[in-house]
């Protein structure tokens, strides 16, 4: 046995004789209480996250549908002149609305809204799955 190994063994022996520092007696019970709370909160957080995802997806769908409606209303009733100065919000809507002008079909608006909704939902489900893993 070389010198280093001998010193290692001696120190190991001494270290294992040293009394171990201990937390207070009810430590395990306190940890388990916090663990149970954490488990409850985790479930609640997950539900909140899922709900927030659905709300966000719903808002997306409403925004796209509103843009589509805005385009059709503007075209059919001709009460809006897009070329005149518009507020940034209206400009944003008008830009999205111009997308529908090329497709010129209501199904496009509904389809896009559905795809966005589905995409957002898939993203949320994926995020939740990663979290659970």
């Amino acid at each position, binding site marked *: 046995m070389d010198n280093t190994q001998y*010193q290692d063994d*001696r120190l190991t022996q*001494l*270290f*294992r*004789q040293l009394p171990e520092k201990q937390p207070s007696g009810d430590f395990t019970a306190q*940890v*388990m209480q*916090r663990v149970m709370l954490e488990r409850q909160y985790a479930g609640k957080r997950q539900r909140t996250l899922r709900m927030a995802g659905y709300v966000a997806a719903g808002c997306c769908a409403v925004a796209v549908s509103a843009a589509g409606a805005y385009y059709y209303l503007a075209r059919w009733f001709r009460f809006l002149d897009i070329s005149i100065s518009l507020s940034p919000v209206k400009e944003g809507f008008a830009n999205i609305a111009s997308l529908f002008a090329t497709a010129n079909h209501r199904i496009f608006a509904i389809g896009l809204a559905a795809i966005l909704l589905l995409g957002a939902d898939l993203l949320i489900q994926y995020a939740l799955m990663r979290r659970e893993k």
Partner: protein
Amino acid sequence: MTIIDDINFVERTLAGDTEAFSALVERYRSMVFSIIVRIVPRQQDAEDIAQDVFVKAFSSLTRFRGEARFSTWLCRIAYTTAVSHSRRQRPDRAGSEIDEQYAEPDDADGLIDERLQILRRLLNQMPPEDATLVSLHYRYGKQIEEVAAITGLSAANVKVRLHRIRKKLYQEINEIENG
């Protein structure tokens, strides 16, 4: 045996058996507490951090892939949590609020063996990082690679530091033994 037990307890916890996690807490509470108390000397703070460590471990148990031992994974959480807590503390508070009840006299716990008294004194005088390294290696039998994984140091660095500490400790203890 312990490793297989640990994996078994982890799997049971993941399956929803919270009592299995309680067994893991019971098994590793002293080790986790010992690591933390070297870095955060206040008893109450150390206990709070030890609790946080177990709660964190429970929350992220799904991320434990079994590549390292469960104890090594847990020690890593304990070490990083304690270090980040001590960094957040103001420097003027560090070390100034060690509980009187926790300040260890040399003859505490019936340490009548002079070598053990010297060992404890030397450990208390060491920088917290060195005390943790040496404690993990000699007390808990962690290999150099495991100590490196826990502390985030390179294996070569751990080896050099352990060599230096061992030399010093052994010298002091040897002097006592040889009168």
